[in-house]
């Protein structure tokens, strides 16, 4: 049973979502069997991670 299917666990699940990596969350909470070769990082999330308010330094 997935952690997200248990209403009384909702608060804990949200806390885990913030503290576990996406891969770990899928394994530990969503009980997914992840196959070998799968990227560890959430690459879509990383591709979106731009801060337009900060310019890169030219050291």
């Amino acid at each position, binding site marked *: 049973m997935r952690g997200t299917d248990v209403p009384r666990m909702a608060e804990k699940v949200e806390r885990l979502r*913030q*503290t*576990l*990596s*996406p*891969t*770990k969350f899928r*394994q530990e909470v969503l009980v997914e069997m*992840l*196959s*070998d*070769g*799968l*990227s*560890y*990082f*959430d*690459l879509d*999330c*990383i*591709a979106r*991670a*731009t*801060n*337009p*308010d*900060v*310019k*890169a*330094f030219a*050291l």
Partner: protein
Amino acid sequence: MTPEFHRDGRVTLSNPDPIIEKVVGYERFYLAADLGQANDFTAVCLLRDRRIPIYGSSTRQVLGPRERVVVFADRFRGVSYVDIVGHLLELMQRPSVAGRVELSIDATGLGRVVHDMMVEKKIPHHAVQMTTGQNWSRNGQYISVGKTLLVETLSVMFSSGELTFAEGLTLRREIEEDLASFTITTSAAGNQIITQSRSAAGHGDLGISLAIAAFTSQHLRRGVIGQHKLTGYWG
């Protein structure tokens, strides 16, 4: 009101009204280097870690959200360790970061040589050695960090939105390619472990240097001694 950035890393929000409770924020930098051997790249990443005072709902200042941004990345090869040490020292002395930057190096394997050179030159730094396992500990002059923890820390920061890239960051694409080279593999014992393959961009050097910078900012940063009202605590 505009925050004032001090040279020692403090960030304040001045207000002449004595009734306003003030808090002190910070701006720090974390420079990390993954040292290359022979034909490999040496990669360097600089992370800016900042919390700025803002006005809360009442007449009190509170610390705003923590913001970590990758503001600089570089890599080079065919450079002697002596020149690398000199270059890192030079980067730390640039006016935009001087006095507010902490250096971490990958002291695994041949990195120990660079660590020894830095100790001799009295350059303050964290010597991080990557090990197996999922914990970290101080081991004499070294900080032993499980590679899984190192990668996990970076992954959580990205997924929680706490870590971003600065606009126009050089080598951004190469960093993303490096991070894509970390994959899940099942060991012979049936455990799932994180492995890293050579990416199109190189050998994961940039990804490792970024992970070390992120780990340092999360686990090794200097503590702040101060007195503040406790808020947001229950339970």
